[in-house]
Structure formats: structure tokens, C-alpha cells
């Protein structure tokens, strides 16, 4: 592989890994926030157990989202300085907003939610998880805004050898953004919901002692999955109104994942909306359905990656559509040796950590809602929140 292909591979590997975890974060955040709300309103121990169990899966998954995201952010400067040189005045702005406002607040509130358990007043603690959800969505919005600019570079003019920002409003209403953002949000919800369904099916299949816990979780998952896939497919089709002309012609690398995503996405939508949703009352009891539900769990992740492949490979050979090629965006002076070393380092470390993370999540699912670390009461402390200020 030449240096350009190596640099592209490095970005594709870290980007795909990042999204595998981010898509679940985006889906589980609102679901955990809803469970936490029910608990805050009812005080029901079952709702508390659901918040802690699914919250634990959410935060363990979150760890990999962070570390893969760090690598992505710095890779722009390491391998793609031609992009910041040519379009940094436009493309840099949404990334600055994402890190300075959205992710900054998301990380701060997540820390408060995890470690403020039993320490913050009930409603303040609940507010934290909703703020985490809101800022996670804001993060996704700014990242999609930046990506949509690469797909359809509006709001800017070329002056000399650089792009200049002239109309930020045009970036906000980019036709490449308005339907793709809700598409991603829907896909996230669908993914998170299917994890609820699959994990609950596993526990029910094993004749868990927590029947009510997993029956409710499974039903919540089915309803959320139905909403998620409905939003995803609806905005998925709407996106074709904003796709660049000829994007998928003669580009097998983009057309194939696109076709697979659409075909299997439609099939899944039919199954969720017309089989699982009508059967919601009996699904927890009909044990023969549980292996099928478990088999469906990885599909949303695969389809999400297919979607990104279609969108990003379809942009080739352009970094910024019809303005800047990927080859010109690469850092001048980058050598194969440099990229190979960093690719091995990042792919090796992040790949291993991803495997470890999935094993840990699988273990949480297997152990069930007993002895969950998240929100555990420290020895020698009472459960009531400190009303210290």
C-alpha cells in the first residue's frame, strides 16, 4: 500500500471503531435517561436496578468512544494537514464547537452522573443524564455538520488557495445534513434498543430469576427499536434528495455497502414493525424467539458501518466534494514509515481495547442486575443523598 492508502486505512479503522461505540452511546443515553426519570418519579427499586444495569453497559461502552474519539481528533492534524490548510477556516469551526461546547459539557456532566450517585440530590442527578443525552446529540450534530460540509461544501468561497467562510447559516441548513443527522440519531436509538432486546432475550432464555426486570427491558427495547428504525428508514430515503450527483455510479466500494444497508435495513424494519411490535406482549414468554432476537443484536452495528462506508467511500477521490482531493489533503512529507508505525500502534491498541470492552459488556449482561458497580453504595455510607447545600 502506498502512503495515501495507509493514511486512509488508519482513518477508516479508527473511524469505524469510534462509530461502533458512539452509535450505541447515542442510543443508550436517552434510554437510560428515561429509566432514570421513571426511577426518580416512582422511587421503584426495579427502575433503580434498570437504570444502574443499563447505565453500567452505557458507561463501559462510553470508555471506548472516548479513546477512539481522541485519536480521530488528532489525526486531522497528523495525517490530513492539507485539509486544515485549505478549509480550516470553515471546517475547523464546527469541530471547535463540538469540542468546546458539546463534548466539554457532555464529559463534565457524565462525570457528575457517575460519581454523583447517592451524593447529588435526586433531581440534580437526573438532570445530569439528560444533559449528557442532550450534549451527546449536540456532539453528533456538529460532527455531522462538519462531515456534511465535506460532502457538499456550501457557505464558503475559494479565495487564493484557501476556502473562506461566508455563510454559516448555509452550513446549518446544508441539504447533506438536514436528513442525515436524524438518520444517524434514529440508527443510534435502534442500535441501543436492539442491545436491550438481545441482552434481555439472553437472560430470559437462560430462565433468569429477574423475570420482570428483563420482561420490561425487552418491551422497552422493542418499542424504542420500532421508533428508531422508523426514523432511520424514513430519513434514510429522504437523504437521497441531498446526495451528490453520480456519487454511487461506478463506485462499487460505496454502492455495495449502500445496497446492503438498504436491503437489510428494510428487512429489519419489516421484522421490527410488523412482527416484533405486534408480538410485544408474548415475546418475553415465547422462548423460541429469544435466540432469533439475540442473533439480530449485531445487525444494527454492521448496518451503521455500511452506512458510513457508503457515505465516505462514495466521496472518493474527493476530501471536499469537487474542491479538494484526498491526495491533496494529506500532510505533505508524510511517509509510509510514519503512517505504518502509527497505524500499527493505534489499530493494535484500540483494537485490543475494543475486544476487551465487548468482553466486559458481555460479562455485565451475563451477570445480570445483581452487584452492579455503577451507583454501588460505598461501605459505611447511607443511601440517602447528601443535602449539603
Amino acid at each position, binding site marked *: 500500500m502506498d502512503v495515501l492508502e495507509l493514511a486512509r486505512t488508519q482513518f477508516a479503522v479508527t473511524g469505524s471503531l469510534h462509530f461502533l461505540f458512539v452509535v450505541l452511546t447515542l442510543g443508550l443515553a436517552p434510554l437510560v435517561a428515561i429509566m432514570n426519570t421513571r426511577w426518580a418519579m416512582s422511587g421503584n427499586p426495579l427502575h433503580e436496578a434498570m437504570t444502574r444495569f443499563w447505565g453500567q453497559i452505557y458507561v463501559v461502552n462510553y470508555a471506548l468512544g472516548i479513546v477512539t474519539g*481522541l485519536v480521530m481528533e488528532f489525526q486531522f492534524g497528523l495525517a490530513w494537514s492539507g485539509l486544515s490548510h485549505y478549509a480550516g477556516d470553515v471546517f475547523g469551526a464546527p469541530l471547535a464547537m463540538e469540542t468546546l461546547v458539546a*463534548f466539554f*459539557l457532555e464529559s463534565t456532566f457524565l*462525570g457528575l452522573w457517575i460519581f454523583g450517585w447517592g451524593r447529588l440530590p435526586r433531581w440534580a442527578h437526573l438532570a445530569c443524564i439528560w444533559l449528557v443525552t442532550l450534549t451527546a446529540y449536540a456532539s453528533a450534530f456538529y460532527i455531522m455538520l462538519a462531515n456534511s460540509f465535506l460532502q457538499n461544501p456550501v457557505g464558503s468561497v475559494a479565495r487564493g488557495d484557501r476556502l473562506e467562510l461566508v455563510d454559516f447559516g448555509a452550513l446549518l441548513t446544508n441539504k447533506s445534513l438536514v436528513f442525515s443527522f436524524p438518520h444517524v440519531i434514529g440508527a443510534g436509538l435502534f442500535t441501543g434498543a436492539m442491545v436491550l432486546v438481545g441482552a434481555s432475550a439472553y437472560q430470559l432464555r437462560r430462565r433468569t430469576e429477574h423475570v420482570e426486570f428483563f420482561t420490561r427491558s425487552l418491551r422497552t427495547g422493542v418499542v424504542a427499536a420500532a421508533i428508531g428504525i422508523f426514523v432511520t428508514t424514513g430519513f434514510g430515503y429522504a437523504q437521497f434528495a441531498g446526495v451528490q450527483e453520480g456519487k454511487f455510479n461506478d463506485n462499487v466500494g460505496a454502492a455495495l455497502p449502500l445496497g446492503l444497508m438498504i436491503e437489510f435495513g428494510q428487512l429489519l424494519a419489516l421484522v421490527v414493525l410488523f412482527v416484533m411490535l405486534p408480538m410485544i406482549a408474548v415475546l418475553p414468554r415465547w422462548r423460541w424467539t429469544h435466540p432469533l432476537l439475540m442473533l439480530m443484536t449485531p445487525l444494527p452495528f454492521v448496518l451503521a458501518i455500511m452506512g458510513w462506508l457508503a457515505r465516505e467511500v462514495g466521496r472518493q477521490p474527493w476530501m471536499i466534494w469537487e474542491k479538494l482531493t484526498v491526495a491533496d489533503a494529506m500532510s505533505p512529507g508524510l511517509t509510509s514509515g510514519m503512517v505504518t508505525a502509527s497505524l500499527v*500502534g493505534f489499530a493494535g491498541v484500540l483494537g485490543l481495547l475494543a475486544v476487551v470492552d465487548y468482553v466486559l459488556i458481555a460479562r455485565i449482561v451475563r451477570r445480570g442486575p445483581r452487584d452492579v458497580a455503577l451507583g454501588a453504595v460505598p461501605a459505611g455510607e447511607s443511601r440517602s443523598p447528601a443535602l449539603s447545600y
Partner: protein
Amino acid sequence: MEVIWFVLFAVLLAGYFALEGFDLGVGLLLPLLGRTREGRDRMVAAMAPYVLANEVWLVAVAGTMFGVYPLLEGEVLFKLYPLVVAMLLSWILRDAGLWFRRRLDGFRWRGFWDAMIAFGSLGLSFGWGMAIHAAATGFAGPVVHPVGVMLGAVVTLLFAFHGWTFLAWRAPGVFGASRSGRALAVSGVVAAVPAVGVLVGAMPYLLANSAPAATLNVLSVMVLPFAPIILGAQVWVWRTFRPGKDAVLLPSFF
């Protein structure tokens, strides 16, 4: 407008040193002060509630650099390529150590991730000294320079001292000493000195290479209104996790 954004950038970088400095310091001290597994658990528990709110300052530094100094972003990171890769890997392993160390009960499991926390903290602290030296000399020399290595050792010692002060403030007496909030503030300022030094030196260069007014105006409108909320969230963290006996209660999530 350039001046406002320079000040913001400077506050973020100096703030990262003053805040994340003590997290890295505690990580550095893990093998020294935390001889037993429970000792290390308590050290991590003391800093755990702050880590997410502290490390994010560097994420914001990088994002601000992209938005406000786009021409420098690629240049600086590319010239430090091997160093940035090594520092990123250190950061990843430190974070993974924190998130993973308590997820399984095995003695070796936790010992391994504690080693990763110490190792990652060391790599990051040392890397910062070398990066600051490279920036101060205009990226002229090789990345690994004797003076840079010395500066790396200095930053490492500063962070370790800051981490020690933090532990003595958050959990008075538990690790052998007690320090006031004022002492912690002073050690934070001292930890930020290397960052402030390089920022002062780079100020004319940064001001001259700011993004054009149109970009800065949009950034100001979109970011500055949130500044009080961001500041408020940080204050909330410090008000919630105050010093006291409960600072090192176990189990903590990290």
C-alpha cells in the same frame, strides 16, 4: 476578536495543566504511594470524580486550535508526529486503565491496569515537556532533544508534586499529609507555568495566524454564550466532590 480567542486558548491550555496535571500526578504516584491494592484504590477514588471534567480541557484545546489556528494545527501536530502518537497512546492506556481497573476482580487484572495508569501518566507528562521544548524552539531541532528530555522530567516532577498536593487536600491525612485549598491552587499555578511560558512566547505568532474575522465571529456567537454554563458545570464538580473522609470511600466506579 483575535485577542479574546487567544486568551480563551491560553486559559484552556493552562487550565489543562493546572487541572489534569494533578490527575496525571496521582497516576505517577500510584506505584510510589499506593503500595497496597487498597491504597491504590483509594488514590484513584480520590481523583476519579474529576478526571472526566479535567481531561476534556485538552480535547477543547485541540478543537480550538483547529477552529482558531487552522494553519498551525496541521503544522504543529505534524512536526511532532512521533511524539503526538506516543502521547495519544499514553493517554489511551491511562484512560483505559481507569475505566477497566475495577471491572473485574482479579488481583493481576487490577495490577495490570494500575501499571497502565502509571505508565500512561508518565508518557503524557514527559511528552508535554518535550512538546513544550519543541514549540519554544520553533520546531527547529529533533523531537528528542536533551533539553526537551530535561523539561519532560521537570514537568513530570511538577505534576507529581501537584498530584501529591491534591491527595493531601482531598483526603487529609489519608496519604500522610494535609493541605489547604490555597496550597492546591498554588501547586496548580506552578504546574501551569510551563504552558504559560510557551503561550507568552508564542503570542505574537498565534495572534498573527488567527482565523479570519468571519470565522472568529461565527465561533464567538456559537461558543461564548455557553461559557458561563461550561464554567458553572466545572464549579458544580468542585462543589460536589469536596474534601473529606468520604473522598476515598470504596467502592468507587474507577
